[in-house]
């Protein structure tokens, strides 16, 4: 329980750091650490396939994409002057939200827990390649669309 709570705290803490750190490189690395924490959480709740995807894609590929984008941008631009006062309000707002959840959270969660639990017979392979095969087709279309979009952005055509 304490290990799980620690992972959730690390996830929120490093997400906060990613949202507030001025250095974009450190922000990207913080996001990667948050992804690793989420991976361990997914392992803890018996969702290993989602965890592996999260680790390889979110903590790996997306971090590489962010770091390569950061390396292409001038340093002065990365340290953009933003209104830091607005970020100073964040802890206060988080405290208010936490208090609200403390009071009303049980009622909200109770609504979900009222749904009867069922046992799942199909394994992940059967679900992914059989029942939800349309999702895979959608994923292939998304990847193709993304690849075409990137090609269109960086092509040296007549424009």
């Amino acid at each position: 329980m304490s290990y799980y709570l620690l992972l959730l705290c690390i996830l929120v803490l490093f997400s906060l750091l990613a949202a507030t750190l001025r250095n974009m490189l450190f922000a990207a690395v913080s996001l990667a650490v948050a992804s690793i924490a989420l991976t361990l959480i997914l392992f803890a709740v018996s969702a290993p396939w989602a965890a592996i995807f999260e680790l390889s894609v979110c903590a790996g590929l997306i971090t590489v994409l962010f770091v390569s984008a950061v390396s292409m941008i001038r340093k002065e631009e990365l340290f953009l002057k933003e209104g830091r006062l607005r970020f100073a309000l964040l802890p206060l707002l988080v405290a208010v939200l936490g208090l609200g959840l403390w009071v009303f959270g049980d009622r909200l969660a109770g609504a979900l827990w009222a749904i009867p639990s069922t046992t799942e017979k199909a394994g992940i392979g059967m679900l992914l390649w059989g029942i939800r095969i349309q999702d895979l087709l959608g994923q292939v279309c998304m990847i193709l669309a993304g690849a075409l979009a990137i090609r269109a952005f960086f092509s040296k055509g007549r424009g």
Partner: protein
Amino acid sequence: MAELLKLNWFFVALLAFVGLYCLLVSRNLLRLLIGIEILSKACILALISCGGAIGKVNTAQTLVITMIVVEVVVVAVALGLIIRSYGATNSIDMWRLNKLKD
């Protein structure tokens, strides 16, 4: 297990809040993308919590896998757009993306 998943809801709300806050207050285009990433992490945690609560973790996992694929395509395309816009305006400040007004 059920107690662990109940605990998730507090953190899902916190993460979603942090992501939305990041989207609202930041002018840096890269940080906006980080805000979207944080929001998607909250969604992943919520999906898995829902799946665990109703005893359908495997279905939740397939949805999470689909979501991660969509997420990485969105990030790649958005970063491509940001790099192109940086080439055109020499800035990643959202407030300077006002050329269409001229």
